[in-house]
């Protein structure tokens, strides 16, 4: 458990204890000190607990484990372990080009103003559909909009391997088209093999993909 989570649990325990005093001995709030303690216990601490909890939950929602906790995402999680450098998500994940603990979020957030908020609102919609709606089959899942090169260029722009890449630098027009999102990085003939879950059964894996839902739910 992280230190911040431990601190939060301690704060929650302290707040519950403080509130319990007023629930079982309400006369305690009659004095000035009691009123101040009641204000802390009933107002300040609960809001602090929820604020800290919200922040911790938001951080947790960026984790790969969180994204893969929905069963329909399992094939996408498995595709990160495919032993083929041509599979873009797998090669990024296995070579730590993206933080493995936040692999999904790193590529599927939106690196624009309010992009993180947009990604999180999208995530809330996914949860609504998953628990209260009719979730699609894994192979029916599509992006809301075509994958934007901005997300790739967030890391790759300026990198020597990208700027001096044989194909990228072959023609200045190609580079301009990539940077202006006219030519998609994941277009056919380029880095087209993204989560190819339809052929997952035919793939060789680098390691056995871990079971992210051992307890099931």
């Amino acid at each position, binding site marked *: 458990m992280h230190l911040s989570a431990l601190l939060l649990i301690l704060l929650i325990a302290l707040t519950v204890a403080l*509130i319990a005093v007023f629930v079982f001995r309400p006369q305690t709030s009659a004095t000035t000190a009691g009123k101040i303690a009641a204000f802390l216990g009933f107002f300040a601490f609960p809001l602090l607990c929820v604020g800290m909890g919200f922040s911790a939950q938001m951080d947790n929602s960026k984790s790969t484990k*969180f994204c893969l906790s929905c069963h329909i995402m399992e094939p996408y999680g498995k595709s990160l372990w495919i032993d083929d450098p041509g599979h873009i998500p797998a090669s990024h994940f296995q070579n730590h080009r993206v933080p493995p603990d936040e692999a999904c979020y790193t590529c599927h957030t939106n690196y624009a103003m309010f992009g993180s908020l947009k990604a999180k609102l999208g995530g809330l919609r996914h949860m609504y559909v998953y628990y209260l709606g009719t979730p699609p089959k894994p192979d029916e899942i599509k992006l809301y909009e075509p994958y934007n090169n901005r997300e790739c260029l967030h890391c790759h722009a300026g990198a020597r391997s990208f700027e001096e890449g044989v194909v990228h630098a072959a023609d200045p027009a190609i580079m301009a088209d990539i940077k202006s999102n006219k030519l998609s990085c994941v277009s056919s003939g380029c880095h087209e093999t993204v989560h190819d879950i339809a052929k997952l059964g035919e793939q060789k894996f680098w390691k056995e993909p871990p079971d992210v839902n051992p307890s099931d739910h």
Partner: protein
Amino acid sequence: MSIPRTTEGRLKVVGLILICALIVEAFSFVGHGAIAFMVFSAAAAVLVCVGVPAYLLTLVREGQESSR
């Protein structure tokens, strides 16, 4: 359930709501998946959002009653 008429009674109800909220919040940290997030946002946060204004309302009512 009748609404408590005394400040002490109201504080008891608000306190129980907040204790429930905080216990649910603590339990939401046991899990790491989407369910934990749902439990936190749909139960813990909602209960705190009910409990804290209820506490403030209790203070306002107490002030009104003592000024009469």
